[in-house]
C-alpha cells in the first residue's frame, strides 16, 4: 500500500475539486452543444473577452501546461520553438480559415468538406482523420493526468489516466462543460494562476540567490538528492561525479554502493535509486545540452539536423493548428467577424502571457529540480517546483496543490473539447444519427479508445507527442482548408488524394520513426518531423489531381466561395444561419 503524503493529499483534494466542479457544471448545462445553431445561440450572450478566455482555456493542453516547461528545462533555448509555434499556428488559423469557415456555417472539417465539394467520400475520409487526430491528441492529455497523479501523490499513474478519462466522458455525457463558455474562461485563469504564482515565488527566490545559469559547467544539485529512475536512461557525464546507487548501473547490479562516473555515457536500468551529494554536477540524458552554456545556445550539437528539425517543427505547428478538431469550433461563439477578430487579438495576448510564464518556470526548474534531468521525467518540472522551492511544509503543499489543480484543468478542458468533437463526428458520420443517446454512446467510445491506448503505449514527452499530431493535421486538413477557401479549382478527387497522401505519409513516417527504424541524419530527422516534406506533398497532390479532374469542379463553386468570402456586413451569412436555425427548430 502506497502511503500518500500530506502534500499529496492536498493535491488530490485540489484535483478532485476541479473534476467535481466540471462534472457538476456539465450536468447543469443539459443542452448538448454540437451543432452550428447551438453556437449561434451562445454567441448572443458571450462577449469577446470571455470568449477569448474560453478559446485560450481550451487550447492550452497538457503539452502547454507541463510539456513546454519540461522541454525548456532539458533543451533550453531550442525548446522556445514549441510555444512560439503554438502561438503562430493560432495566427495562421485566424488569417487563413477562421472567418471563411464561420461564414460557411460548417463547424467541423467534414461539414466544410461536404459544403464546399459535395462529396460524401471526401466527408468519410475527413471523418476518419478527425477521429485519428482527436484520439492521438487525447493520448498525451490522459497520460499527463497519469503523470500528475503519480508525481504529486506517488500513486500508480494508471489511476490518474483512468480517473481523467472517466471524468471527461462523464461531463460530456452529462451535457458537456463545453456548453458553458465561462467555465473554459475560468479554466484559463486557473491555469495561468497555477503557473504564475509559483513562477513569481521561484523568481523571488532566484533573485535573492547567488546562482546563475550562465556557466560552462553542468547544473548542480543544491543539496543531497535522491533520484528515482523509473524508465531506463542513458546519461551523459560532462564532469566526473560520485554517488551512491541501488539498482543496475552500467550493467552491474549495485546495492547502496559508491559509484564514480568518468566523462562519457553511462546507463541505468529501471528501477534504480541514485543518491547524489549536494554540490555534485548533474548528468543529463543523452542528446540534451550537458552544460548550462550550451543550454542557452541554439543548436549546440548538430546545427544542420537542428535546422532541418526546427524548420519542420515550425511548419507543423504553424499549419497544424487549423486542423485540430477542438480549436475551430470556438469561433462560432463570436457574434460577428469583427468580434471574432477582436477576440483573436486577446487570445494571442493571453497565449503569449501564458507561454512567457511557462518558459520562466522551465528555466527556473533547471536550478531547483535538476534531478529530472537524470530521471528523464522533465515533464514533471512544473509539478515539483513548488515543493523544491518552498520545501514540503504547508506553503509548498498548498502551492503544489494549486499547480496540480491547474494541470488537471488543462487536461479536462482540452480533453472534453476533443471528446465532444470526436463523438460528434462519430455519431453523425458513423452512426448517421443526431439522437442525444447516440451522441452519448459515441462519447463513451471517443474516450475509451484513447484510454486503452494511453495505458498500453509508452509515454513520449508531451510536447513531442503533440508535435507529431500537429504534423498529421498540417499534412491533411491544412491543405484542404486553405485550398478549399482560397482556390476555386479544387475538386473532390484532388482533395481526397491530397488528404490521403499527406495523412498516410506523415502518420507512416512517425510510426516508422517511433518504432526505432528511423536512423540518424536527415532521413531520421524527416521521419520524426515529417511536416517539411509531407505538407508540400499534400498541397502538390491536391493541386495536380484537381487540375487533372478539373471537369468535376462543383457547379456551385462560385456561390460557395462568395458565401465564404462575403464579409458579415453584407448580411448574407447571418440570414443563412438564421434560416438554418429556423429550419432545424421548425
Amino acid at each position, binding site marked *: 500500500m502506497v502511503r500518500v503524503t500530506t502534500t499529496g493529499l492536498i493535491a488530490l483534494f485540489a484535483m478532485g475539486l476541479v473534476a467535481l466542479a466540471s462534472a457538476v457544471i456539465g450536468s447543469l448545462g443539459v443542452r448538448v452543444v454540437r451543432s452550428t445553431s447551438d453556437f449561434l445561440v451562445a454567441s448572443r450572450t458571450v462577449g469577446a473577452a470571455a470568449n477569448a478566455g474560453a478559446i485560450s482555456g481550451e487550447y492550452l493542453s497538457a503539452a502547454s501546461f507541463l510539456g513546454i516547461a519540461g522541454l525548456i528545462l532539458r533543451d533550453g533555448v531550442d525548446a522556445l520553438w514549441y510555444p512560439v509555434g503554438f502561438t503562430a499556428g493560432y495566427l495562421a488559423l485566424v*488569417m487563413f480559415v477562421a472567418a471563411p469557415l464561420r461564414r460557411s456555417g460548417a463547424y467541423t472539417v467534414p461539414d466544410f468538406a461536404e459544403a464546399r465539394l459535395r462529396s460524401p467520400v471526401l466527408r468519410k475520409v475527413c471523418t476518419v482523420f478527425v477521429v485519428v487526430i482527436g484520439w492521438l491528441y487525447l493520448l498525451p492529455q490522459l497520460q499527463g493526468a497519469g503523470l500528475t497523479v503519480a508525481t504529486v501523490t506517488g500513486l500508480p499513474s494508471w489511476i490518474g489516466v483512468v480517473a481523467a478519462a472517466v471524468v471527461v466522458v462523464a461531463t460530456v455525457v452529462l451535457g458537456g462543460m463545453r456548453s458553458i463558455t465561462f467555465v473554459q474562461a475560468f479554466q484559463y485563469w486557473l491555469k495561468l494562476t497555477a503557473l504564475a504564482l509559483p513562477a513569481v515565488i521561484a523568481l523571488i527566490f532566484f533573485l535573492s540567490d547567488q546562482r546563475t545559469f550562465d556557466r560552462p559547467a553542468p547544473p548542480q544539485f543544491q543539496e543531497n538528492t535522491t533520484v528515482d529512475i523509473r524508465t531506463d536512461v542513458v546519461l551523459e557525464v560532462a564532469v566526473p561525479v560520485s554517488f551512491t546507487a541501488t539498482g543496475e548501473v552500467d550493467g552491474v547490479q549495485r546495492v547502496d554502493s559508491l559509484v564514480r562516473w568518468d566523462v562519457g555515457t553511462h546507463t541505468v536500468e529501471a528501477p534504480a535509486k541514485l543518491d547524489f551529494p549536494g554540490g555534485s554536477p548533474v548528468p543529463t540524458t543523452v542528446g540534451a545540452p550537458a552544460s548550462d552554456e550550451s543550454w542557452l545556445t541554439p543548436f549546440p550539437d548538430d546545427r544542420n539536423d537542428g535546422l532541418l528539425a526546427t524548420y519542420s517543427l515550425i511548419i507543423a505547428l504553424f499549419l497544424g493548428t487549423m486542423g485540430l478538431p477542438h480549436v475551430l469550433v470556438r469561433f462560432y461563439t463570436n457574434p460577428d467577424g469583427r468580434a471574432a477578430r477582436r477576440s483573436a487579438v486577446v487570445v494571442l*495576448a493571453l497565449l503569449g502571457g501564458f507561454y512567457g510564464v511557462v518558459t520562466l518556470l522551465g528555466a527556473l526548474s533547471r536550478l531547483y529540480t535538476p534531478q529530472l534531468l537524470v530521471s528523464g521525467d522533465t515533464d514533471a518540472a512544473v509539478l515539483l517546483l513548488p515543493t523544491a522551492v518552498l520545501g514540503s511544509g504547508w506553503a509548498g503543499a498548498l502551492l503544489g496543490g494549486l499547480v496540480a489543480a491547474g494541470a488537471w484543468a488543462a487536461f479536462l478542458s482540452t480533453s472534453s473539447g476533443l471528446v465532444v468533437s470526436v463523438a460528434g463526428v462519430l455519431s453523425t458520420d458513423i452512426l448517421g444519427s443526431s439522437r442525444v443517446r447516440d451522441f452519448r454512446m459515441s462519447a463513451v467510445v471517443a474516450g475509451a479508445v484513447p484510454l486503452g491506448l494511453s495505458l498500453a503505449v509508452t509515454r513520449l514527452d508531451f510536447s513531442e507527442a503533440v508535435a507529431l499530431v500537429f504534423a498529421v493535421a498540417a499534412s491533411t486538413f491544412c491543405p484542404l482548408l486553405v485550398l478549399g477557401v482560397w482556390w476555386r479549382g479544387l475538386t473532390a478527387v484532388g482533395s481526397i488524394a491530397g488528404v490521403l497522401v499527406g495523412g498516410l505519409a506523415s502518420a507512416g513516417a512517425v510510426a516508422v520513426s517511433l518504432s526505432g527504424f528511423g536512423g540518424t541524419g536527415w532521413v531520421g530527422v524527416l521521419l520524426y518531423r515529417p511536416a517539411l516534406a509531407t505538407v508540400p506533398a499534400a498541397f502538390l497532390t491536391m493541386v495536380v489531381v484537381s487540375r487533372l479532374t478539373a471537369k468535376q469542379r462543383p457547379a456551385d463553386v462560385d456561390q460557395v466561395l462568395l458565401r465564404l*468570402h462575403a464579409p458579415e456586413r453584407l448580411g448574407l451569412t447571418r440570414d443563412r444561419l438564421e434560416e438554418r436555425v*429556423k429550419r432545424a427548430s421548425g
Partner: protein
Amino acid sequence: MSTTGERSTGTVYEQVQASPEFADLRRRLRRFVFPMSVAFLAWYLAYVLLASYAPGFMAIKVLGNINIGLIIGLLQFVSTFAITTIYVRYANKHLDPAAEKIRQQIEGAE
C-alpha cells in the same frame, strides 16, 4: 418558405459576385494575408538560420545571462502579437468599409 428565401438571396449572391467591388475586396484581402504570412514565416526561418550560422552573434550578452538569441527568441511572441494587431487594424480599416459599400449598393439596387 425557406426555398423562396434561398432563391431570392441567390440573386443577391450573383449580383455581388459579379460586382467589381467584390473582386476588389477579395483582392485586398488576398494581397494582405498571403504576403504577410510569407513575411512572418520568413522572419521565423531567418531566426533559425541566424541561430545555426551566426552562433557568435546570438551569444552576445546583453544583460547578465540574457543573450541576443534569447531576446530575439522571446521577440517572436511579440511579433506574432504585432502581426495579429496589424491584421485586425487592416481588416477594420480597409475590408469592413469596402464591404459596407457593396452592401449599400445592393440595397440601393433593390
